[in-house]
């Protein structure tokens, strides 16, 4: 049975919460009313990447996206568009930046500068349908690799594409495959690292949930190239939807003999199994991940030997990240030269970033390497909300650092970000404005590493803890200038002597905030003052004479420290104040300010 039209209902988490289920039901009721429920397919897709808009319904093949809120709007869409082929202009989603209703979805300003390779199918196909994946050239790359290329040729193509590992390190993928291929062994393994854990990064989740088959296909291609017959996907148990869709995808692929024995009539066989991660960030490190699959504590091992020589159960193993794998089928189909036309010379292709923090349009974006940070933040991201000023962009999560405003025009690729003292990482990009305290941010990341350190090596286990203690001291106003020196010494020691990447990069947030925001550290130490008003012990509030007497601050104060009458300037009793900042947030005119200690007692 073929339908003449398809309605895509966004099944992303954001939309799901906006009661997309109810919308789906209502659509069905309306279709039944018009007796056309058999002509129209309703499909729940993964996120469209326009989360800000929410509850989005796409009509295909017309490629029209509607934003609906009420039942009457659904009635209108069904009656006009589906019944009579008239597009309901007034319900089309608006471009969040241009504030206009656009005809073509791809003309959306948000998508203009993007180039979707990794996310090519996300939001377009039904992730539960292998047929839809095949219809979008799915498994053609595997067929092409098996039928037209030798394993050496496949590796040569990947090498020529200059694809680099998207998990953060940026190691050339083709080279990694070649090492695994050259290791002599009758048994080899392919492992997909889907233990995405970097705070603020969720591109792997999007691919696993939106396009699970692309990963299976890429893993099979990798298996063919290096001579492996067994693959494992190590996915976090915290991503239950991804786990479910992967399980389904593996089953469907097996049923069509796209996984299993003698694929495409060749003598190549490949199987994939899932392994669940159980809440340990360090398992994203490849040797720790391998230990975890083997059934041990997820602790890293000393390299070399690299997994390519001795990995899972001592056999040569190739570990790649989800996003890296997602690039593979396209590279095989379109060729390395095509891939090289995208991106920069040393970093080809695209990178998916998760925009988050203080930015108008949050969500996943995929941009060609070489796009500037300014374009990302202000053009695609729409800038900083509430007319605040940008302070820094944090990339690379707890392993990365901060990039400040003057460096915003740097084109993004693996090497430029490292030069700026940060790193690509897995692609989290968190924008911070003037209300974020950089000492606090560094303290926050250190708290994360302290907790996630597996404890195997001393520099990471003890060093991160000591650094965290010092940062705590500083944010409480008890720090000294010596502490800052200690912090720097410790940071470089931990970076140089830790066993794995987690410890080696853990000091980065400290080092980069110290480099760019030393004055903030000094303000905390010398003046006992937190310029951003975040560190509680160092924040004093004052109500200045621009107060309009709206009483909002007094109503919101949980301890009754603010006194004042309507239309009169309010007063704040600092002896009662618990420095929660509720008043500052409530003030509509910005009359409540933070000041250095001592001046605040009004």
């Amino acid at each position: 049975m073929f339908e003449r039209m398809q309605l895509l209902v966004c099944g992303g988490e954001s939309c799901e919460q906006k009661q997309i289920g109810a919308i789906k039901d209502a659509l069905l009721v309306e279709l039944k009313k018009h007796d056309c429920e058999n002509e129209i397919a309703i499909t729940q897709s993964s996120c469209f990447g326009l989360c800000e808009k929410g509850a989005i319904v796409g009509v295909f093949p017309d490629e029209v996206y509607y934003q609906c809120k009420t039942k009457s709007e659904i009635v209108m869409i069904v009656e006009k568009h589906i019944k009579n082929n008239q597009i309901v202009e007034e319900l089309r989603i608006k471009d969040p930046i241009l504030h206009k209703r656009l005809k073509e979805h791809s003309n959306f300003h948000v998508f203009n500068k993007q180039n979707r390779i990794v996310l090519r199918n996300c939001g377009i196909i039904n992730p539960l349908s292998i047929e839809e994946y095949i219809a979008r050239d799915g498994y053609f790359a595997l067929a092409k690799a098996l039928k037209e290329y030798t394993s050496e040729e496949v590796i040569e193509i990947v090498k020529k594409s200059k694809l680099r590992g998207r998990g953060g390190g940026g190691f050339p993928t083709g080279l990694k495959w070649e090492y695994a291929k050259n290791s002599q062994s009758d048994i080899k393994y392919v492992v997909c690292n889907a233990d995405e854990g970097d705070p603020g990064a969720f591109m792997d989740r999007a691919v696993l949930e939106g396009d699970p088959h692309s990963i299976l296909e890429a893993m099979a291609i990798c298996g063919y190239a290096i001579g492996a017959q067994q693959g494992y996907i190590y996915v976090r148990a915290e991503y239950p939807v991804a786990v479910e869709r992967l399980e389904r995808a593996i089953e469907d692929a097996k049923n069509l003999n796209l996984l299993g024995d003698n694929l495409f009539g060749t003598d190549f066989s490949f199987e994939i199994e899932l392994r669940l991660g159980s809440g340990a960030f360090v398992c994203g490190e490849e040797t720790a991940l391998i230990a975890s699959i083997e059934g041990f504590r997820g602790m890293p091992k000393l390299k070399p030997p690299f997994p390519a020589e001795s990995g899972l159960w001592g056999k040569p193993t190739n570990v790649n990240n989800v996003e890296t794998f997602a690039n593979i089928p396209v590279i095989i189909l379109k060729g390395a030269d095509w891939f090289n036309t995208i991106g920069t010379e040393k970093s080809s292709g695209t990178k998916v970033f998760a925009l988050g923090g203080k930015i108008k349009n949050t969500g996943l974006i995929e941009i060609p390497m070489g796009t500037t940070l300014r374009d990302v933040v202000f053009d695609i991201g729409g800038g900083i909300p509430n007319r605040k000023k940008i302070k820094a962009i944090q990339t690379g999560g707890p392993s990365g650092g901060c990039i400040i405003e003057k460096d915003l025009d740097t084109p993004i690729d693996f090497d430029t970000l490292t030069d700026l003292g940060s790193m690509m990482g897995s692609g989290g990009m968190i924008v911070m404005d003037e209300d974020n305290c950089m000492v606090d941010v560094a303290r926050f990341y250190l708290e994360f590493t302290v907790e996630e350190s597996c404890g195997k090596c001393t520099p990471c286990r003890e060093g991160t803890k000591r650094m965290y203690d010092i940062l705590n001291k500083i944010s409480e106003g008890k720090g000294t200038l010596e502490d800052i020196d200690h912090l720097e010494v410790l940071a470089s020691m931990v970076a140089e002597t830790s066993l794995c990447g987690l410890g080696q990069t853990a000091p980065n947030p400290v080092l980069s905030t110290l480099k760019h925001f030393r004055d903030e550290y000094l303000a905390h130490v010398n003046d006992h003052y937190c310029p951003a008003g975040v560190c509680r012990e160092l924040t004093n509030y004052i109500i200045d004479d621009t107060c309009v007497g709206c009483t909002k601050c007094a109503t919101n104060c949980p301890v009754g420290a603010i006194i004042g009458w309507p239309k009169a300037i309010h007063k704040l009793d600092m002896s009662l104040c618990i420095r929660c900042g509720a008043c500052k947030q409530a003030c509509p005119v910005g009359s409540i300010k933070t000041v250095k200690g001592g001046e605040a007692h009004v």
Partner: protein
Amino acid sequence: MQIIDVLKKYPASQTSLLEILLEIDRLKDNHYISKEEVHMISEYLGVRTSHVYSVLTFYTLLSTEPRGKHIIQVCKDIPCYVNDAFDVRKTLEKMLNMSVGQTSRDGLFTLEETACIGCCDEAPAMLIDLEPYTNLTRDKIERILASYREVTL
């Protein structure tokens, strides 16, 4: 389902350990692995009990102490932190009258913190029994908790 049935689903080799632990944890209403179960697992897989404990205590999703029927995990990572205007963790602590790491007296909820759960675009977020709840507000949390209480009653 009995523990022994869970065990039999998996091949008796060490690589199944984590999967078995996760499944037993999910199966039980009080979400933990008891001493007896550790012994059963170690016998079935042919590994030492100390090894089972070493793995069991390494991963944050697993517990050796009984927990509540529903496990609430509040994301404590930076995007949620930066976008958290009202302190989700404190709000939950207040509403449930307990602190992180504890189980409510009626045995319904255990409150935990978790590393990033990949819902950063809709921060702040939390998981209840691995089901994500995002764009949290005070009212929303109240409604969510109420819905879990209702189902149980």
